[in-house]
């Protein structure tokens, strides 16, 4: 088993967790003392632990947008590889876009979640420096998106539902990426995913960076982990343009409404998957388990829906992004009425059975 250290060391505390860090230090000192001097400090330690839990609860129930971004970028946050190891049984990776190469920022493959076979498409950031360089810090190139597309087409052919795990700062802005058509690759994915004839569940597990995230983020459900963020532009980028000062990123993050809470309120995501106390990086197993639970439950719902209805629902879900709630309701009833009408027409146009000759 790879080391899935979810032990938070002294250097892993975010700057708004100062008190939590202090409590950690105190507890460590007491433990050290008790082992040296042989005095029992367990009740004091328990007291400090309680205090720490309360402090974490207090901090994490009121994170600002910028703090959320920091949690989403935490170096110990579970990555795609953790989900593949803990959640996907018997994972078989599929490599290459059959055209240019094998982008390591996007991993695709067949596997099993719960009792369902699924096709997983995910963005990988890498844990240590070497891995990070190999997968380009989670910034896909066009061949990554093209790989995702042909593999999803494969899944469509065999009726295998697609699960995408989004975690990228954005599509890579490089010379080669432009030469090979980053924009065209993403556009093609958006178009094809909107009409892929299998259920698609998209889950933002960390950073949902703009078009790079959307490139594998069109489907029947778009959900987020509690402290993930999803945004049209990085807060730093937005601050540099609108505030003319990159250091104003906290203000930009607030204005962009990029947290799961805000996006749920705006009806831009379908659900929020809760994270354990103190964020996903404090308990990798529970985080992955929550995600798995959501996938299993949702797949059961989606698989019950007829493919044509699934696509119709997906289309209207996408079509109503940014449309006012009243208009959305009007369209829903209109679409429903049309669907009923079509069904009735179908019944009436069915050829009458010819009576068998006696």
């Amino acid at each position, binding site marked *: 088993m790879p080391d899935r250290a979810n032990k938070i060391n002294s250097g892993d505390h975010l700057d708004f967790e100062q008190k939590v860090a202090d409590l950690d230090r105190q507890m460590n000192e007491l433990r050290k003392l008790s082992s040296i001097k042989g005095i029992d400090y367990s009740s004091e330690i328990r007291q400090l632990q309680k205090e720490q839990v309360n402090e974490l609860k207090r901090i994490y129930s009121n994170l600002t947008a910028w703090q959320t971004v920091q949690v989403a970028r935490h170096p110990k946050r579970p990555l795609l590889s953790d989900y593949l190891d803990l959640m996907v049984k018997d994972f078989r990776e599929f490599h290459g876009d059959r055209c240019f190469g094998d982008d390591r920022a996007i991993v695709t493959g067949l596997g099993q979640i719960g009792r369902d076979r699924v096709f997983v498409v995910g963005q990988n950031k890498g844990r240590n420096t070497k891995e990070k360089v190999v997968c380009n810090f989670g910034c896909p190139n066009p061949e990554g998106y093209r790989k995702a597309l042909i593999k999803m087409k494969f899944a469509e052919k065999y009726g295998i539902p697609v699960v995408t795990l989004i975690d990228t700062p954005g599509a890579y802005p*490089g010379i080669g990426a432009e030469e*090979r058509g980053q*924009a065209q690759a*993403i556009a093609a994915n958006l*178009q094809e995913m909107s009409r892929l004839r299998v259920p698609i569940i998209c889950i933002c597990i960390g950073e949902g960076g703009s078009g790079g995230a959307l490139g594998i983020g069109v489907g029947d459900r778009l959900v987020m982990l509690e402290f993930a963020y999803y945004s049209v532009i990085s807060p730093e980028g937005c601050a540099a343009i609108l*505030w003319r000062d990159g250091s104003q990123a906290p203000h930009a993050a607030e*204005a962009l409404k990029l947290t799961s809470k805000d996006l749920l309120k705006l009806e831009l995501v379908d659900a929020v998957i809760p994270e354990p106390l103190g964020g996903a990086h404090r308990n990798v197993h529970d985080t992955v388990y929550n995600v798995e639970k959501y996938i299993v439950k949702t797949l059961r719902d989606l698989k019950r829906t007829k493919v044509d209805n699934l696509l119709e629902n997906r289309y209207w879900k996408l079509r109503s*992004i940014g449309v006012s709630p009243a208009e959305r309701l009007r369209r829903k009833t209109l679409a429903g009425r049309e669907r009923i009408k079509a069904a009735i027409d179908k019944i009436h146009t069915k050829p009458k059975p010819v009576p068998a000759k006696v």
Partner: protein
Amino acid sequence: MAKQAKSKWNGFSLRPRKEMPEGLWTKCPACEHMLYKSAVEKNLNVCPECNHHFRISAATRINYLTDEDSFQQVLGDLKTSDPLGFKFRDTTYKQRIKDDEKKSGEKEAMLIGKAFIKGRPLILAVMEPNFLMGSMGAVVGEKLCAAVDMAMDEKLPLVVFSCSGGARMHEGVVSLGQMAKTSAAMARYDDSGGLFISVLTDPTTGGVTASFAMLGDCIIAEPGALIGFAGPRTIAETIKVELPEGFQTAEFMLEHGFVDMIVDRKDMRSEIARLIDYCQK
């Protein structure tokens, strides 16, 4: 044959607008020739010396492109609802909208409607560069989808002139969602067998390139137009290398296989008319 326009569309007449700064003379940014302004305007806002295509407003473009007075706008008064209540520095998104309404004379960054080019009816969508840099927010996405619906209903070709800095960040994920929304609409249009001609003009970048603009059955670019995903400044800052000459121009995109043809502004009308004729079923 040409269909009669439906009466529910409110007519909309276009006056040519001045695009150049005041004064009789102007300097071409490409070849630095001093040019007599009326000569440039007469030349469809193209530099007579070096063929540099100046940016033009949506109304000017429609004027150059369509048969006289044939453009009938729809959804002309659709306005954004400012979904995030976006505030920045000491101003607001609402204020920016008001300012740019005044600056551009339009209510949003895209005009859609039915028009005729050389007698051929079509659905036309044109983006307005002077309105928040032609960025795509909820209204632009909704209008484009409405144009797709019209093209499907009336079985007419759809021609879209893109000119945009990308997604409109003042609308956050709502604007990001427009990429998915317009692409889904294009998928439907594609399934229905309609012809979609996408014309990329200077500049076409970001979320617009990475959605409907790159999904044309036929993709045309204006000479010298900046076309790409990431902006050149972002790329230069990320990789810290000088960008090569001609990077992300229409010619670069042609060379790398992402546009079908480059067409001069003066030939655009006849080229579109010819394509429509060729693709008739």
